[in-house]
């Protein structure tokens, strides 16, 4: 199954690469690092937003809170040098300003041009207390909503601790396949492993406010003004995606 998907993704990548080459609009895309340094420090309830350049970040309540209609704190900017006085478990490896998703919440990222790509980011587990054993408690989860609908989800284990017992920031190169995807929005959240080693964060399986993450230095690309060329490119992507879906369906019985 995994091998099959890899093959499919290679195929897809080829198609996307071709699309990019074909699309003159891609020449106008801007790649930048979203590092939060210029952001006014802010604490966010679910549904509240702030902007960084061409991007807008919206904190989202946990799936459980959303299901029951509760709203509360779901994210904030943090300063590695000064925000950690009362969370004794701030991650190590980032003394600058970064974003923290808290209380099982997620952050939803959109671009003014309704088109964004992401190739890498720094991320860490934001533990509620210090003194935890060195263990992989969960994963960071990236869910991209593609321009033509449909989503792709990618997840990766949080890094463990440094020798001092602090959870470390890690850099995640998302890989060429994911990096080439154009999204209308990107959701970033965390999940925690339960006893059955299933990583949970849903309305029926709550990690009880402890699925928390820190992110920084998101390598993002967006298109300032969508135009004809871009639409052409989108069309190409759409074709490639439907091809992928067909192949995937076909591959399943072999797994």
């Amino acid at each position: 199954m995994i091998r099959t998907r890899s093959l499919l993704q290679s195929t897809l990548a080829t198609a996307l690469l071709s699309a990019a080459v074909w699309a003159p609009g891609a020449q106008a895309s801007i790649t930048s690092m979203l590092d939060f340094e210029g952001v006014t420090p802010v604490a966010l309830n679910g549904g509240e937003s702030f902007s960084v350049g061409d991007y807008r970040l919206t904190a989202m309540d946990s799936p459980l809170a959303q299901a029951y209609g509760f709203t509360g704190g779901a994210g904030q900017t943090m300063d590695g040098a000064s925000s950690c006085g009362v969370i004794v478990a701030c991650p190590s490896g980032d003394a600058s300003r970064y974003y923290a998703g808290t209380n099982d919440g997620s952050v939803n990222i959109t671009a003014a041009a309704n088109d964004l790509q992401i190739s890498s980011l720094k991320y860490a587990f934001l533990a509620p207390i210090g003194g935890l054993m060195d263990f992989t408690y969960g994963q960071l989860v990236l869910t991209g909503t593609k321009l033509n609908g449909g989503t792709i989800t990618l997840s990766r284990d949080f890094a463990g601790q440094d020798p001092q017992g602090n959870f470390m920031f890690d850099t995640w190169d998302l890989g060429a396949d994911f990096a080439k995807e154009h999204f209308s929005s990107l959701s970033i959240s965390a999940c925690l492993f339960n006893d059955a080693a299933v990583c949970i964060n849903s309305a029926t399986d709550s990690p009880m406010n402890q699925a928390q993450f820190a992110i920084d230095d998101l390598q993002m690309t967006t298109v300032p003004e969508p135009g004809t060329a871009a639409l052409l490119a989108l069309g190409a992507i759409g074709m490639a995606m439907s091809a992928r879906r067909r192949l995937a369906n076909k591959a399943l019985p072999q797994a």
Partner: protein
Amino acid sequence: MKLRPVSLGVLALVTTIATSIHAQEVRRPYIVQLADKPVATYTGEVAGLPATKPASGKLNVSAADVQAYMAYLDQKQASVQATVANAPVLYQYNTVFNGFAALLTDAEVRALKKNSEVAAITVDEPRKLETNYTPKFLGLDQPGVGLWDKLGGKGSAGENIVIGMVDSGAWPESPSYADRVDANGRPTHDPSGTLAYSAPPADWHGACETGPGFTEAHCNNKLIGARFFNASFLAQNKTPHYSDFASPRDALRGGADAGNKGGHGVHTSTTAGGNAMVAANLGGIPVGDASGVAPRARLAVYKVCWSYLDAGADDGSGVSNSCFTSDSVKAIEKAVQDGVDVINFSISGSQTNVLDSVEVAFFNAASAGVFVAASAGNSGPGNAVAHISPWLTTVAASTHNRFMGANVTVPGAGTFQGASYNQTVLADVPTILARNATVTPYASMSADDQKAASLCYTDNDRASPSLNPGGKITAATRLDPAKVTGKVVVCDRGVTARVDKGAAVKTAGGAGMILADNGAGLVADLHVLPAVHVSAADGATIKNWVGAHLDATTSMTKAAASVGATLAPVMANFSSRGPNKGDLNTLKPDLTAPGVDIIASVSGPGDQALRDAIANGTVVPDPAWASLQGTSMSSPHVAGLGALLKNLHPDWSPAAIKSALMTTTYGTYNDGVAGMSNGQLPWAQGAGHVQPNSAADPGLVYDSGRTDWLRYLCGLGKLAANSATCTTVGAIQPYNLNLPSLTIAEVLGKATLTRTVTNVGGAEATYTASANLPGYTVTVSPSTLTLAPGAQGTFTVNLTNNSAPQGVWRYGSLTWSDGAHTVRSPLTAKAAMISARSEITSEATSGTQAMTIGTGYTGGITVKKAGLKPANRTTGNVVTDASPDGGVSACKAGGSASVVATNVAVPAGALAARFQLKDEDTSGFKAGAIDDLDMLVLDGAGNVVGNSGSATANEMVTLTAPAAGNYRVCVIGYAPHNGSATYTMSSWVLSTADTGGNFKATAPALVFTGGTGTVATSWSGLAPGYSYMGAVQLVGAGNVSSTTVVSVDATDPLPAANLAKGQAPAN
């Protein structure tokens, strides 16, 4: 309240007691053995009393059967002693020997020989009896099983271990400090004696500092070090009292001058490590042999406490003896450098700050492997435990069961036993109530005088502002010689010193006194006239009879020592109680030890002329002894035990020694105190009463060291999480520090505590856990540990609240047992709904803070916020305040030039209020000196709702969720520089109507039982140069709320001093 020096007045002993007791008949020391078997060999011959001889291993003295048989023996002994009622009984035995030691006349010996209960009478020569009772009470001298025996007997117990005493110095003439012995093996300073100690240990680097009354010749191979530290004291510009010496010599004690307040350091040092076989006497009354707990230890004294003129001294003597912090810190540092193994610190300390400078000094001492014992404080039964840092052993005080008592008979009322050192028999002396013996008839007195009439004030007591605030008690209450002469007077305990009451009766011509207790417990004192201190209940019976019978009479016996007549140990009423006000998640005090009626050496009495003669070396003063009480007295017992354990286990860390002492304790008897101050709760007795013979072989220890303590400080927030130290060592939750006590202040539905034990036994052993805590399901995982010698095992204790109410402490225990060892820890927990930090601080004009909260329910949570708001700054001027109550009454009355009042309105729904003074905002600080200002806050009804009394002008009072009303803030000129200070006070009153700085606070949408959540605050756009405050209130299930103050000081503030005022020996 303010740290006023603790009064020594109640302990001042009067030395003018009649000493003619030997004149009539010659008494000689004998040991009287009785027919019944002692506890250790008793096999159950008496009907109804099971055997107490241990089948194997050690005798469990606290077992019910043992206690029952001891009570039986005590009763039998009492009946025999009653046939020789005038004989001073030095000592009573029941464990390995059944009988007593007494000073007997020839006629009494003959009478006893005819008594069928008596098995044998032997001459007490040479005396081997350790009549300073506490080593025996602790069981140190039990043959075979006693800790002394394990170390080769008292002739080697503590060998080459050096105990450093940071206290008020030494009185080198005491035989307790001698390094020679006479032909009978008794310690002596006589140069012709045999040297009993070799040269100090090779790694000893101490020195013998000299000065008035102290030369190098005063040090020897027992008292191997003597230093004094007075830089800070001299800097206070106090006038030294003549009784003191600018040298390691302790100040004079007692005599005609109530200002002679030395002797504390002599008492504590000889208790910890004084020689054995020192014949002690109290005011000329022989009380048998005294011994330190570690009699072969070497002693080094570090004098830091000084006597000086102090018009505000609580006892009206005009003299205080205090110990200044930086002198203490230097002394501790020096002691560690010199190479001491153990430090005793019987001086008060911070009740809230684990990083107080003295505690930091002890952190380093303990890190260097020095075992530190410190006194819990004498502010009980209030919640005022001091020395709260986890790296030292904090000692509470409890009773032992040697009882110096006499009988008092009031025909018609009965015969009562009470505490006494009385040496004069009274027969049928007319008796009167104090209230019926005053110069003005009781019925004609003011209400204040009527209350005081039975308390037997002296004229000096009435003149003392602290004993007679406002002078409301008048001379109408003076005892009238016309009514008192030749009579026994019945006085009530309370307010004034017990010995003062005796003095008042004697001044009026009285023949004796019956002192009726007020519930605080019986104490034997050396009174200036025959006196017996009876219980409150017995006192009431006596007073009823005497009050109704003008012809009432009293007879009084001589005092005799008896053992076991009272249940012991019982926590002393004065012993300061927990919880730990600096960290609710660590237990303080750690344990208790004997601290009531402790006999040891003190300084001698004297006057200016004698003092000068001692100072210039023309007079060699006599040794002296006194019976004192206090946590100052219990702490050196534990220091001595630390020395013994270090001697037995040189590789044990200070934490291991502390663990061994704590996990082998037993519980005290009920002291009857209500509520959380009850003596049987861990707040009073810690883990329990020391049982050193078990501590020698505890099985397991809970060890910890420097890195663990640093992690603890990081987790506690005392070291910043992003500091270099914390990023290097990491952090742990305070309740997870590896202490031999388990305490958690906020169980949010469930909690997990982690501990690690080390097998210090000689063989592999399998331990099984058992744990209980009412209201909780407790599991230990793993529940068994099999550990090779030296191996460690880590386990968790998991608590799940099944019925414990919110906010109420529950008390249980965790015990590991392998069949041979019982390793017991107190387990103490309180359930909570919301757990949040009380304060968030920042110095940034914009920023965010993330705060983890704990929650004990599942559901929604709401958040209220106030601020950020700049300080309201008001400037004032204050002059020196001399009011005896620290300014409280002046503040209530609306203020004065020395107690400057500011009225503050607090609106309904306010979230917080804060009032703050800073050194840099005072004129003295700006002039390069220090203003010592204090602060007091009263609510609308005049109740004190907050106070702050540090040694500088850094003062702060914070009120959370204050009720609406008109409050009053008073700035008190405790000691402004040059008598006057101009200051600027910052104040904030915060309600939800206050907004500013884009301040925002968020709380989790949902919280969970036993869960956590992140509360975020953010702000921006603050102006530099101002100090801002905000508040966040979380409201959860059942309207339970929790308030967190947000302090953003954008003034780039200076590091703040956090000094406690001068401290007095906590005796």
